[in-house]
């Protein structure tokens, strides 16, 4: 195994919080504010890790274990995910299934931890989270199937590594549809606008953020770092798809991908600044719409 395989996971582990920082700075720019420092999340994590903890009397070990299990699962996922041409640390035929199901395990325990404190807000968030993620699951799987079909491979690294300029020229339409579908999945899974707004003042309308209301201290640090990793994971799928730079030179690839990630962060920031959050009842329409796009892409690909 060569050392370049370490690049993608290392970049994810180190830079994931920065990605959120760029999004927040972009949003601040649109709002006419100066905004928080780019490295704010790193400071937050450091602060939280140094704090004590307060637990609800209602809760059990689930609320303490949920963040840990979630973060552990996401860190295993990080090892599977490629960054464009840079392969992930672990690759094997079928790793895209492990990818999808580890994410769903992380979610399973986050939801249980939310239900553990017996609060109505967190129950509400949990219920919405499982509903929306159920609708995104087929989209993710079908999008990955398109990539698997084009690369003849069941491994995320080979599937994304095979996306080149030529494949964009040949199967452009299908790839555009996959891109849109994956972008919607990325927004939905990471609780971004227009699906969820973590910054609203009203807990009634939140999804992801309301689930972690009762977590604090190191647990919250685990959760925040985990969500940053998750956003990075999905973003690197999207960037790997739209940026077909496969030079084979590790540092060129890495540089272009990191640039692409930065651009995507700015794009996400723009989306969040210019769009309003959808009404909750309308969200399923968006998600099912993404599923139909993925289906259409698959139809185009396999025809």
């Amino acid at each position, binding site marked *: 195994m060569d050392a370049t395989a370490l690049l993608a996971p290392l970049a994810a582990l180190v830079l994931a919080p920065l990605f959120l920082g760029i999004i927040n700075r972009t949003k601040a720019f649109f709002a006419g504010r100066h905004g928080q420092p780019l490295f704010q999340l790193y400071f937050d994590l450091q602060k939280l890790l140094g704090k004590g903890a307060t637990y609800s009397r209602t809760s059990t070990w689930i609320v303490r274990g949920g963040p840990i299990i979630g973060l552990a699962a996401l860190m295993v996922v990080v090892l599977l995910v490629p960054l464009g041409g840079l392969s992930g640390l672990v690759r094997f035929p079928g790793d895209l299934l492990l990818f999808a199901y580890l994410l769903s395990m992380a979610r399973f325990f986050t939801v*249980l931890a939310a239900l*553990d404190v017996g609060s109505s807000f967190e129950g509400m968030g949990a219920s919405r989270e499982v509903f929306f993620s159920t609708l995104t699951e087929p989209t993710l799987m079908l999008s990955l199937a398109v990539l698997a079909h084009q690369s003849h491979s069941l491994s995320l690294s080979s599937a994304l590594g095979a996306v080149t300029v030529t494949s964009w020229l040949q199967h452009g339409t299908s790839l555009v549809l996959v891109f849109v579908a994956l972008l919607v999945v990325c927004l939905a899974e990471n609780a971004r606008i227009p699906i969820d707004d973590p910054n609203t003042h009203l807990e009634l309308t939140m999804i992801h953020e309301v689930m972690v*209301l009762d977590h604090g201290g190191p647990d919250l640090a685990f959760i925040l770092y985990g969500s940053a990793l998750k956003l990075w994971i999905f973003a690197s799928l999207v960037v790997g798809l739209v940026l077909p730079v496969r030079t084979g030179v590790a540092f060129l690839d890495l540089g272009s991908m990191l640039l692409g990630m930065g651009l995507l962060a700015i794009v996400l920031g723009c989306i969040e600044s210019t769009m309003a959050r959808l009404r909750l009842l309308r969200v399923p329409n968006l998600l099912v719409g993404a599923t139909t796009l993925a289906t259409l892409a698959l139809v185009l690909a396999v025809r």
Partner: protein
Amino acid sequence: MIFLLFGCGWIVLCGFAALLPLLPSRWSGTIAVVGIVGGSMLGLPSAVSKVLGGTPELASMVWSIPGGTLSVALDALSGFFLVPIYLVCTLAAFYGLEYLRSSPRGNSLGVFWCSYNLLMVSMIVVILAKNGILFLLAWETMALTSFFLVTFENERPEVQAAGWIYLVATHLGTAFLLVLFLFLGEAAGSYDFDRFPPVVQFLPSGGLFLLALVGFGTKAGFVPFHVWLPEAHPAAPSHVSAVMSGLMIKTGIYGLVRIVTLLGPPSTWWGVLLVGLGVSSGILGVLFALAQHDLKRLLAYHSVENIGIILTGLGLGLLGLSLHLPALAALGFAGGLLHVLNHALFKSLLFLSAGAVAHATGTRELDQLGGLAKRMPVTCFFFLIGAAAISGLPPLNGFISEFLIYLGAFSTVTAHSALVALGPALVAVAGLALIGGFAAACFTKAFGIVFLGEPRDPHTPEGHEPGALMLVPMGILALSCVVIGIFPAGLLPAMETVVASFTLQTKDDLSVILQETVEPLLILSLAALLFLSLAGGFVVLRRRLLRRRPVEETVTWDCGYAQPTPRMQYTASSFAQPFVARFAIFLRTRHLGGLPKGFFPRMASLSTKTPDVFRQSLYAPLFLGIEKGLHYLQVLQRGRVQVYVLYIVLALVALLTWTRK
């Protein structure tokens, strides 16, 4: 083989001994369990040896019943189905010893245990039988004994109703099987399985396949033949539900596989039909499960879902066989069959732990439960493992079998197969993904509402941990779920033998394909271990971080609006509301009560109820119609003996004339 048969005899013997009239009733269970343990110890080794590649054995005896010999055989496929039967029946029996101790009806325990032992033996004989008549006899015994077990608490009217529905459904299924065997036996001149011809007069093999599908499907319980499942499983005592849901419905799958292998090379549409039925069964099953408030009813609908997953795997396998796609065939069958084993493990685990909850609190209503994690921590942990496994989450066994089915389906994608294979495979992929999401939603609901939060109803007893006799069987099942999930590669050789035994593919072909999956499975083990050690590392880290810092306990914060009370918690209905509302067109959930009206509303209440759509709008009208039609036959009922004798004479003469030439 001979030990196995002796074992069966011993189980039956002890079963009847439990009936002895002078016996104190608390002994009957012990005697029956002694029989089951002895029988399992005699039978399990030979079953396991066949799965590991031992040569098939056959035993036959002349039988006085016309239609063939009394023959039984033990090959890899039979062995594979026998292993979970021995394992789960034994564990459930130990569980039952304690579960039934508090039963108020001490007197009929003898009948109960006798039926239990007979049910176990009849399942074994169904799996072993190589003769149609023996098979049907065992099949009927299985149906009747399980009927007695379902109606054990027959003083409750809903249990009686459930028993009747079950009895009718299972007999309708048997009727189809009878026709199937008559066709096959008529053509062969014998009811021995190995003499059955693949084609018979009057009926193409597709017709035989459909007969088998309906007949065995009624037992297996996939949509639309599932209506008895959600009635019978909740009515039965929990360990009987575990045996019925984990094992007995699998005999339907076994029969389907066995008969399909006899029908010659499969047509393409068989596989497509099975995938379609499997996916719709999976989605509808889990949707109905989401809308239920009764814990055991919810689990029963999940059996429908999991049978759907199994059927999807088998359908992909058949498709692969008919289109000569060895990867699809091997992985589809291997995944489907492995899911049979896995479902037997985690579903019985779930039923047993649900039984422990019902036993301790006296209710199965989700909305009356809550906060049991503190009262029953061990049961809670076991239920959590079962819940994660049934949702297909790594690193547990449910993920492994779904992984294999996915790999099979994706093999058509990477190979760019023809649309006829690719289409169903992609439907299976999308369906499995959707089912996985729904199942996770449903089990976060079930686990979260039952075990987490605060007790929702002050009148519900607080609950207590069950005794060792109930806990240890659950623990063994949970452990096997974890072990299979972390070390799946060890099962591959066994799956290879089993699949090779009935697909008639050369074992080399299979080996090549399954060898290719060894590496992914080994990496899955590594990933599982890495995950566990990472989690362990974080636990240590968190403990070190918090060591010298204040850790307090207080009320749930809840944004500081109001002090939360148990009544403010989310309930099962509210948790499932988004799903129920969106899929109302399938579920037809009824809302009772309604929104409060006016400025100073009085007491308002809202409750939802989701009856089975198929039962309400397919079977109920159908049977009503049949009943109406049968009224016309009343003219024949004259109530005079002379007329009846006349009927007999007429029928006799007519039959004689018909068979004359």
